[in-house]
């Protein structure tokens, strides 16, 4: 592989890799699955590195979100399933109440359809506008708005978060 491409790619991952991994983790809810999802997206990106016009990050994001939404899994390390048992525990030093809310949100997110989960991650983790989120997913801002509304309504119904969580 071209040394220049490798160097550029490595630098890109050094700068943006963990931020993208946080996105993958928020989508998947599991370390291993998130790792697989993102590494597949990055591998596809480096193969196409020279032909990419503009920011490679937007390319990685598009692959990441579309692969996640389609549910396509390239390496089946672990099943993602809805469980009554929370997949994580509060860490030492965690504000206990805040930790419980975080875990409750994680469980509630897993009950959402994938596209709604993706929209919430774009809007509330990545803090994207409806327009920018629409750009990533290849749809209209109106769709982002409606998917956001439906997802939030489901979260309020399905979780104990209720009025303790404010959207804005």
């Amino acid at each position: 592989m071209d040394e220049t491409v490798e160097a550029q790619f490595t630098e890109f991952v050094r700068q943006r890799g963990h931020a993208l991994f946080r996105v993958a983790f928020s989508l998947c809810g599991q370390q291993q699955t998130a790792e697989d999802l993102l590494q597949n997206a990055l591998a596809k990106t480096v193969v196409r590195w020279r032909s990419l016009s503009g920011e490679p990050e937007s390319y990685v994001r598009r692959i990441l979100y579309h692969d996640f939404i389609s549910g396509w899994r390239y390496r089946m390390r672990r099943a993602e399933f809805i469980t009554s048992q929370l997949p994580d525990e509060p860490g030492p030093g965690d504000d206990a109440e805040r930790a419980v809310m975080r875990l409750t949100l994680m469980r509630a997110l897993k009950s959402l359809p994938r596209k709604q989960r993706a929209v919430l991650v774009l809007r509330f983790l990545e803090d994207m506008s409806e327009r920018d989120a629409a750009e990533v997913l290849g749809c209209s801002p109106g769709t982002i708005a409606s998917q956001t509304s439906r997802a939030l309504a489901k979260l309020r119904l399905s979780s104990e978060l209720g009025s303790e969580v404010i959207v804005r």
Partner: protein
Amino acid sequence: MTTRLRDLFQDIAAQAKPVELAGPALRKARRIRTRRYTVGTAIVVVAVLGLSFWLVPRADQGAPQLAPPASPTPSGTTPAAQPSALPPPSIPARPVPSVQSPPVELPGGWIIGGGQGADQPWIYDRVQRRYRSVPYYRAIPAPVGDLVFVEHQDGRAGIWNLRKNEVRWVAGAGSGWTLGVPEWSGDGRRLLRITDQGRIYVTDAETGTSQEIRPVGNSCELCNSAVWLPRENQIALYDSNNPNGQTDIYDVASGNKMDTVPWKPGARTAFSPDGTRVFTRAGIFVLATGKVLVPVPEINDDRTVYWTDDYAILIIVQGGVEVISHVGRKVDFFPWPAEFNDDELPNFSLVKVNG
């Protein structure tokens, strides 16, 4: 205590433990680049040996083997490719359904036609009448006929003809990584795909040529709601800009919008065999008018839907297949056989047993 939703999402993201990303991605990309195939190569025996190291056979059955490629083929096609030797897996390999396994049959003459293994896809080869692994990144068999959509490790999309054992790679318009899951037409002759540039193409499986579908406005909700219509010369795209939630119909031959219908396709959409009704999560509709005929039961974790005959609708779920009637009632449930891992659930394809 009130908490902002954004703050909770930041908390979730903060749980992500740092991992090495560049190295594994580069290694994977190098493997992609070194697995290029040339036209007219001889049979690569190494490939078969490499695979036998990690495909774990059932105790009472032999390991599935790749069929050797055909002799050199006309230009524009390549023999069905053999992989170079694979590195040992870092995770336990999962078995492909045994080569001796009969096809897993479902109501309406459908069988499980393909899935995604730990590192390679597998399909039911109707020519050889057995399950076999496939040396490509992805493989999705057509519902009828002898064709399989394959995605090469380097991102090329191709149509593999099982009978001729040839792959025709998509070039020019329609080339590029395929986002999401491509959709075969019901007659198995054309393929609907979204490329990594966000463009929608219908590819003729015989010629390998592609027609671009040009949505009017933003008629592409997350690019996952494009579906074939029963007449096979049209596809439907949901018009997210229309406040009434209407769906636009596009002519496959020209790529232009032809009509609008009052229902919304989705990931779980299936049409009745007579082409007059459509199943969606919202209910069973009359295709032409959007009139709701019957509601449908809420089914947890539903994935793909197949309307198999006039009376049975199959819904792939975790653990097996739900069967509901054309009047919207649950009538039966078929659990998966033991060798079909639930992790592959989203990637199962159904094909006609005699298609």
